[in-house]
């Protein structure tokens, strides 16, 4: 169930009285309903499921996860395992 992927909000508009937005998924732009994420701002990432944005991605939490993993990699490098740092797409 519940295929939902993160995309970036490009613009907000009204359609039939509903708050809608165009969301960019690496170049493919899809329309989604934003009624459930009233706080969202253009440029933020959101999770879209079946045409509805369900949550604004918490970039701070994501960053904390990345940092924790960087520590994992640093520790591994100290042990001589030799992992490269993650390459993160912009």
């Amino acid at each position, binding site marked *: 169930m519940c295929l939902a992927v993160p995309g970036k909000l490009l613009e907000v508009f009204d359609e039939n009285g509903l708050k809608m937005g165009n969301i960019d998924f690496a*170049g493919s*732009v899809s329309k989604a309903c934003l009624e459930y994420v009233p706080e969202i701002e253009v440029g933020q990432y959101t999770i879209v499921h079946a045409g509805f944005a369900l949550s604004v991605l918490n970039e701070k939490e994501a960053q904390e996860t990345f940092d924790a993993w960087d520590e994992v990699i640093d520790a591994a490098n100290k042990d001589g395992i030799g992992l490269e740092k993650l390459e993160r797409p912009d």
Partner: protein
Amino acid sequence: MDFPESLSCPVPILSHDTVQLAHGAGGKLSNEMIDKIFLPRFTNTTLEKMEDQAILENPGGRIAFSTDTFVVDPIFFPGGDIGDLAINGTVNDVAMSGAQPLYLSAGFILEEGLPFETLHRIVLSMEKAANIAGIQIVAGDTKVVNRGSCDKLFINTTGFGFVPDGINISASNLKAGDKIILSGTLADHGMAVMTSREGLSFQSTVKSDTAGLNHMVNDMLAVSHDIHALRDPTRGGLATTLNEFAATSNVGIQLEDGKIPVKDDVRGACELLGIDPLYVANEGKLVAVVPPEIADTMLAAMQNNPLGANAVIIGEVTDNHPGVVALRMGLGGNRIVDMTVGEQLPRIC
């Protein structure tokens, strides 16, 4: 084809703006349509004779012969249309035998009411694709059906060419150790068509990869005639083609994840719609199976052709798990890449 092209070739002036049933009745209107729409674009000495059949020279050798019918909806999609698709599709099917595609027939089923402007645009696009591939359209037919009996237009193309001596390319030739080369990114065509369909609310940069591959096949044959198998992974995608190879040759195929190229925007659309690019149609890609000793030179030759710039070795043929295509994932697990049961649909789970 881009629109500006057709602006330089204005729609010929006909007595009607749209296709009438009478255009298929074999009378004056039929002749007018053929003379003004088709003949100026598909011109060659064979077609111009307007006989009931094309009579062609036989240069000798084995004939490669293929037919395909095109019913794509929408008829115009980013990167192409039903016209160039109909040419390239059959050119590619013939070329995958190692043959030089030479001649094509084109049969049209037109829906009553189809604007001539639309038909003209498609015919121009066919002309361009045929010129690029270097083939001649030597026979044709048009029928007009009642509104609703077909969707705008359907095109059948049949093509043939001659297979040079010493070439034996077949899905039954795979041997353990052979390398599998893919000529470029996956899923461009299928996702371009899907994301341009009404209802999905998509604005996509995804473009179809429709292209004639016969010149790249020539480049490949110049490296070696010892190509074991060659196929263009159209409907059903790479997964289906490789499963057909594995079943026909009774060998296993081992792919490596992370090596199969997919463009970013195509992947974005696939992720959102829950579609696996391995199963999506391509119209300008080929997959080649070659002996390991020539794999690198073959790859380089493909990469030198603009249509193969992103060519890459994606895996190899193995004695293990005969009949099964497996994809080694980054974690070390092996995922089976099976045939699909039906068409790929946007899904939510």
